[in-house]
């Protein structure tokens, strides 16, 4: 579980690369900083009260955990180490079979990556300070409660948990609703309030470094094994199946996305391969414990095709979701969540049959209600948060700063210094001492003489 937690942590820097490569070079640092700052901000909020809101005893209706119960992780740490040094023996608080603190750490990473995912919609134009305010409020008002709805099962971390997990019984193994639909809906709300980038969609805004995107996609896939298989909270058959499903659904989604590109655009692209990987990972996240490996392939293929088509929506509808958080995470999350209702098989650990396995519509409507409830809640509350932050702080950088590059205006840094003009012996290179001395003494031989 410690290893899985660390894997999930790596997804956030991975996401920073994935997103960073997709923007223009003048805003690569800001793009990466939005992800990285989530590691700072949400990590602290999670320990202060986030975990408690998500996994504390329900305060009513399955909507919210008690924020005071585990504030500052009160009562969750301890151990036998003190006993060996002569102090009183301390019981280790457990969640299932693992120490509670390990579970806290694992779930912290989910909160961090979910907040970071939103930033893809806000490329090039959102001031850094207001982003942090938005991120903190969003984590507090949206993510922590929704994690409670989806991840908090009765009697595991506390006696009473959230409504989607316990009353609705929608299957969301590792966070198709709480992470992906949630972040996708928030991204849509944020980019609507924020407005389009200057020049979008007429000006070309092509990815400046697709090798970074590929690196990021690789790190995301690697980390995702911790995300999904780790969600089994144990080293067992569930972890094994979810691991394999996370592999094969993602592979299928990549192939499907490339096939769509080959047929529609003529060429399969590397950005398409990276995007297909992420779409597959998103779709298998809620479903990896509920489907067979063959079901996972089918689910991956569908997710790859649907997401490859969905990323075109923003041009039709005119919202500047810069890096397709909606097309990949919201749509992919919905596809994965809804398809559980079709492809679930009782031979998988979740033990439920979907429509294609003779289970009728029962699970399908539970999945749909769960998915759309999170979508609606996240979208509406995110809109409100974005409007409030806009009213108090303002959201956008000035037009000049946006044109010149947000890296310089918000961070006073430049992502790259490759050009021969600035480094590596070109313009700006200091004179070597000998040359300086010689230059000072030198008088041109033919000075003043016209030829």
């Amino acid at each position, binding site marked *: 579980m410690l290893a899985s937690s660390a894997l999930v942590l790596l997804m956030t820097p991975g996401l920073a690369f994935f997103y960073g490569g997709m923007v223009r070079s003048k805003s690569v640092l800001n793009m990466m900083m939005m992800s990285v700052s989530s590691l700072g901000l949400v990590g602290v909020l999670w320990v202060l009260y986030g975990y408690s809101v998500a996994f504390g005893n329900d305060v009513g209706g399955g909507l919210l955990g008690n924020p005071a119960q585990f504030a500052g992780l009160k009562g969750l740490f301890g151990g036998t180490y003190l006993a060996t040094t002569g102090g009183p023996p301390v019981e280790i608080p457990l969640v299932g079979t693992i120490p509670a603190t390990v579970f806290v750490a694992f779930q912290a990473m989910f909160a961090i990556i979910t907040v970071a995912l939103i930033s893809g919609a806000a490329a090039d134009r959102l001031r850094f300070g207001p982003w942090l305010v938005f991120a903190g409020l969003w984590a507090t008002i949206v993510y922590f409660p929704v994690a409670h709805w989806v991840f908090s099962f009765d009697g595991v971390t506390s006696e009473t948990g959230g409504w989607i997990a316990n009353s609705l019984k929608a299957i969301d193994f590792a966070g198709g609703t709480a992470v992906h639909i949630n972040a996708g809906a928030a991204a849509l709300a944020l980019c609507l309030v924020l407005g389009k980038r200057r020049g979008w*969609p007429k000006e*070309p805004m*092509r*990815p400046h470094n697709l090798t970074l995107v590929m690196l990021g996609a690789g790190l995301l896939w690697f980390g995702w094994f911790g995300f999904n298989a780790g969600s089994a909270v144990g080293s067992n058959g569930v972890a094994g199946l979810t691991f394999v499903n996370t592999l094969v659904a993602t592979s299928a989604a990549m192939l499907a996305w490339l096939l769509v*590109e080959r047929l*529609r*655009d*003529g*060429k399969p*692209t590397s*950005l*398409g391969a990276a*995007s297909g990987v992420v779409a597959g990972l998103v779709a298998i996240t809620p479903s990896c414990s509920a489907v067979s490996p063959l079901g996972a392939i089918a689910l991956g293929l569908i997710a790859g095709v649907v997401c*490859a088509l969905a*990323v*075109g929506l923003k*041009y039709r509808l005119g919202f500047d979701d810069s890096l*397709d958080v909606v*097309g990949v995470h919201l749509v992919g999350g919905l596809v994965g969540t809804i398809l559980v209702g079709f492809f679930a098989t009782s031979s998988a650990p979740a033990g439920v049959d979907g429509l294609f396995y003779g289970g009728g519509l029962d699970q399908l409507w539970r999945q749909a209600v769960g998915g759309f409830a999170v979508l609606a809640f996240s979208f509406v509350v995110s809109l409100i948060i974005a409007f409030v932050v806009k009213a108090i702080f303002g959201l956008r950088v000035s037009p000049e700063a946006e044109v010149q590059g947000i890296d310089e205006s918000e961070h006073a840094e430049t992502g790259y210094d490759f050009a021969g003009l600035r480094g590596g012996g070109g313009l700006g290179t200091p004179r070597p001492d000998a040359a300086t001395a010689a230059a000072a003494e030198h008088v*041109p*031989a*033919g*000075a003043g*003489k*016209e*030829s």
Partner: protein
Amino acid sequence: MMLVTAIVKPFALADVQAQLERLGVLGMTVSEAQGFGRQKGHTEIYRGAEYSVDLVPKVRIEVLVEDEHADRVVDAIVAGARTGRIGDGKIWTTRVETVVRVRTGERGPDAL
């Protein structure tokens, strides 16, 4: 003196340089350039969205020569850069008033 400026396809640089060296030209300056002419750019597609890239990468070659050598230098560049296909580039000459060798201060043809 004349300044011969040539805009050619990047891959032609080595051949042009070989031709100029065979001619005995003592120096040239090369820079990367972008531009458009009759050769059209190309289209790139990212997540289904098309972007037309209409500035084509080229190499700019500059050679300073005495007046009487200018034509042969131009011919040498043509010989090195011609493929016969669209986008091979342009060459032009400009009259130059003064040339100074920075190291010695020599002026005029001596500085070439």
